[in-house]
């Protein structure tokens, strides 16, 4: 299996390098189309690379403990599905997997019917695949074998490190870190990576367009679907990661402004801005330069995010992980950054679409404000990540910016964004009069005031929570009333067909509703969540927010060969009535000297009651429990589903939407 994996992988790299040479020759001969041969070669290389990945997966599933990577992420007790996902459970494997995903995207782009990829854009894509594949094979090769030297010591190497060394097979592997054995973790990394990789195609087309001075609207028409899909996968990946951290990391946090999290948010912010400015250019032919800047920036931030995750440099000087690949990654990133800047400066004049906003109070202007805020958020997060590095280099002092910094800077910006989002559908494409807005506004405004009044009367007295809920309600009721008005205008019998036909617009609204729901979840977690900790003897109770938890019993079982399960049995009461039996537990891995908490959650749309087993003793017996009541948290996951569904609706539309189509259904609203 070793050679079956290694040889195709090296051949794939070779094929890509040959393809690059052939493409350069074609460009030299002033040929802008991609030669057929090159396209075939790249597809063939992808198939070779796929063989490499399949071999590694087979080695993982068959537990080939002569392989260093396999031995470090797999063990016999792990279920089969986890052995497959161990492919991206460690640094070497996930880098290899990532390079394969980039190759997959190139394969799909080359196979698309439209002639999307020309010689220049292929050159950019092939350079990316070769770089990451090369980085994997020469920087952190997943096919490394374990060798026993003549003195008995073990080393990892591809081939015999000295004469007389023999391949050594370990009797057992380490296995995947228990924290990574979670359904969220199975799909979160591939989704995120796929989202990242999809942005490579718009970048390549963008670079090619700039180089060839193709001053047409090709960029948007060709790459819109890629950007939308990239956005969908990235969004799904981020939300899943958040859910995983809420469900597994014990304290019930959904977002911690960890540098890796923050870095994944960066391309998401610029891609979101890109979707808005694409729409504007499609409709009005403005924002052309903005588009190019955002396409290039999104790719660069993807590479930056990979750098943050893999180099170990940014989290701190007190580095998290050792890494030999940080310097090549840094050089690679700087190369594309410089290329992008040079090309933009060179073509800046030629790109000039007219920049004219007819009124500061129409939808164009609102798109502009939205994008300014999104870019401001990008700047804030980017600064939070690089300031410690810059400061360290200049002063020698190690300084960090943590949650406090992000809370302070992003909260006002996110609030503004939600406010814009709430009122945006009321603003038409042309300059509007306040009177007209007022007409459309009074129903949603009335309903949201009513919501807040009802909450106030039911004794919710936290100003921040009420303000947040008001904003969210205003946005949701606006979207709802406008949709119903459309329904009345079209006639309800034809409504579903109409919604589907206009899914470009309603998909976007679904996404907006999703953002509002996530905002609602954040309001709940940040302003209303409460918790209590305590130690309980059997049949003692602990109260919180009208709930009571009673401790019944605690037991230890040894059903799994790897870990011992300590499971407590508790009863949850609401106003004195039993509503659920909950079993918060710990899995204790004696060999690893580690345990992970398995929280028990009683969940409904309004709130989670979240129980964490913090400590226990079976002999006394007692347990120490942490109980949290997290109102509105589930709206966050619901919002995530809205985002993905809405994004998929938009992705299925053609990029050639005529302007009059939009105006047709805007008419009935202007009553």
């Amino acid at each position, binding site marked *: 299996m070793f050679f079956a994996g290694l040889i195709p992988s090296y051949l794939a790299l070779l094929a890509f390098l040959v393809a690059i040479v052939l493409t350069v020759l074609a460009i030299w001969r002033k040929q802008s189309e991609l030669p057929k041969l090159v396209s075939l070669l790249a597809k063939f290389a992808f198939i070779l690379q796929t063989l490499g990945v399949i071999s590694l997966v087979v080695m993982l599933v068959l537990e080939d403990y002569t392989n260093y990577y396999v031995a470090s992420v797999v063990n016999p007790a792990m279920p089969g599905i986890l052995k497959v996902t161990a492919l991206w459970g460690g*640094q070497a494997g996930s880098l290899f997997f990532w390079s394969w995903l980039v190759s997959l995207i190139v394969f799909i782009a080359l196979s698309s019917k439209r002639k999307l990829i020309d010689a220049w854009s292929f050159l950019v894509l092939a350079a990316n695949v070769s770089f990451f594949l090369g980085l994997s094979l020469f920087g952190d090769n997943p096919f490394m074998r374990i060798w026993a030297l003549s003195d008995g010591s073990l080393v990892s190497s591809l081939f015999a490190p000295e004469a007389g060394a023999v391949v050594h097979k370990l009797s057992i592997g380490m296995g995947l870190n228990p924290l990574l054995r979670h359904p969220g973790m199975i799909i979160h990394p591939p989704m995120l990576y796929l989202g990242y990789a999809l942005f490579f195609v718009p970048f390549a087309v963008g670079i090619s367009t700039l180089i060839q001075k193709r001053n047409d609207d090709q960029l948007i028409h060709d790459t819109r679907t890629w950007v939308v899909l990239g956005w969908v996968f990235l969004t799904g990946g981020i939300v899943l990661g958040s859910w995983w951290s809420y469900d597994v990391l014990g304290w019930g946090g959904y977002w911690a402004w960890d540098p890796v999290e923050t870095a994944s948010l960066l391309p998401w912010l610029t891609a979101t801005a890109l979707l808005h400015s694409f729409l504007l250019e499609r409709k009005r032919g403005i924002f052309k330069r903005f588009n190019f800047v955002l396409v290039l920036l999104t790719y660069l931030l993807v590479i930056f995010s990979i750098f943050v995750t893999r180099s170990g440099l940014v989290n701190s000087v007190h580095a998290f992980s050792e890494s030999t690949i940080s310097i090549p990654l840094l050089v690679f990133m700087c190369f594309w950054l410089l290329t992008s800047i040079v090309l933009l400066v060179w073509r800046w004049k030629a790109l000039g679409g007219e920049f004219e906003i007819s009124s500061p109070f129409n939808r164009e202007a609102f798109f502009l404000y939205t994008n300014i805020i999104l870019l401001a958020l990008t700047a804030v997060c980017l600064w939070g990540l690089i300031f410690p590095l810059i400061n360290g280099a200049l002063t020698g002092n190690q300084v960090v910016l943590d949650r406090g910094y992000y809370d302070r800077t992003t909260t006002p910006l996110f609030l503004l964004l939600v406010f814009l989002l709430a009122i945006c559908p009321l603003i038409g494409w042309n300059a509007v009069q306040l009177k007209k807005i007022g007409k459309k506004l009074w129903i949603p405004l009335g309903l949201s005031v009513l919501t807040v009044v009802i909450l106030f009367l039911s004794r919710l007295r936290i100003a921040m929570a009420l303000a947040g809920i008001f904003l969210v309600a205003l946005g949701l009721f606006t979207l709802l009333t406008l949709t119903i008005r459309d329904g009345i205008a079209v006639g309800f019998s034809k409504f579903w067909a109409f919604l589907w036909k206009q899914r470009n617009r309603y998909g976007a609204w679904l996404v907006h509703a999703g953002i509002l729901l996530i905002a609602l979840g954040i309001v709940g977690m940040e302003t209303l969540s409460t918790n209590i900790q305590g130690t309980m003897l059997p049949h003692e109770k602990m109260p919180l927010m009208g709930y009571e938890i009673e401790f019944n019993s605690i037991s230890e079982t040894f059903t799994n060969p790897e870990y011992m399960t300590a499971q407590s049995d508790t009863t949850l009461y609401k106003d004195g009535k039993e509503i659920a039996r909950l079993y918060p537990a710990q899995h204790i891995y004696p060999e690893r000297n580690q345990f992970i908490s398995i929280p028990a959650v009683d969940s409904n749309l309004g709130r989670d009651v979240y129980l964490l087993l913090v400590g226990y003793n079976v002999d006394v017996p007692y347990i120490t429990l942490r109980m949290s009541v997290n109102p509105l948290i589930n709206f966050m996951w619901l919002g995530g589903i809205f985002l993905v569904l809405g994004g998929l609706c938009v992705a299925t539309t053609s990029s050639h939407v005529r302007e009059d189509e939009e105006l047709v259904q805007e008419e009935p609203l202007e009553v």
Partner: protein
Amino acid sequence: MKKKNTKLIIGIVIIVAAVVYLIASSTLSQSQYFLTVEELQSNQAEYVGKNVRMSGAVLGDTIKYDPQTLELTFQVAQIPGDHRVIEQMGGMSVVLAQAAHDPTLPKMTVHYVGPRPDLLKDEAQAIITGSLDENGIFQASELLLKCPSKYQSELPEQSK
């Protein structure tokens, strides 16, 4: 038309200025020193009571946890702060393993109240936010153990 665009540009400039102010003021008020055990101990007087962050290798034998009171104490040993030094010494896992078994290194006692983190164990890297008290004990408000996404286990001991 021209006039309106000018207004818009003025508006944008104001927004940008506000954002820059937000970033600058938050950077000044929220940045924390990130120190090694050695740095913290050699300038103890300077840092007492200040909010700082510290990194060190967890000493497994010193972990004491009382689930009744949720009081957690443990010691961390000095590890170098410079990324390049760590790389030269053979990487983070080597540095942590050495630090946990080298009695000559400076050590610091950490005190924390709350649930015991899942990853707190011997040779783990702890990143601790909090402040130093007068007795030279680090009162932690936040504990961060080696991040799972970058977790890579070492080769197991030779097992036959």
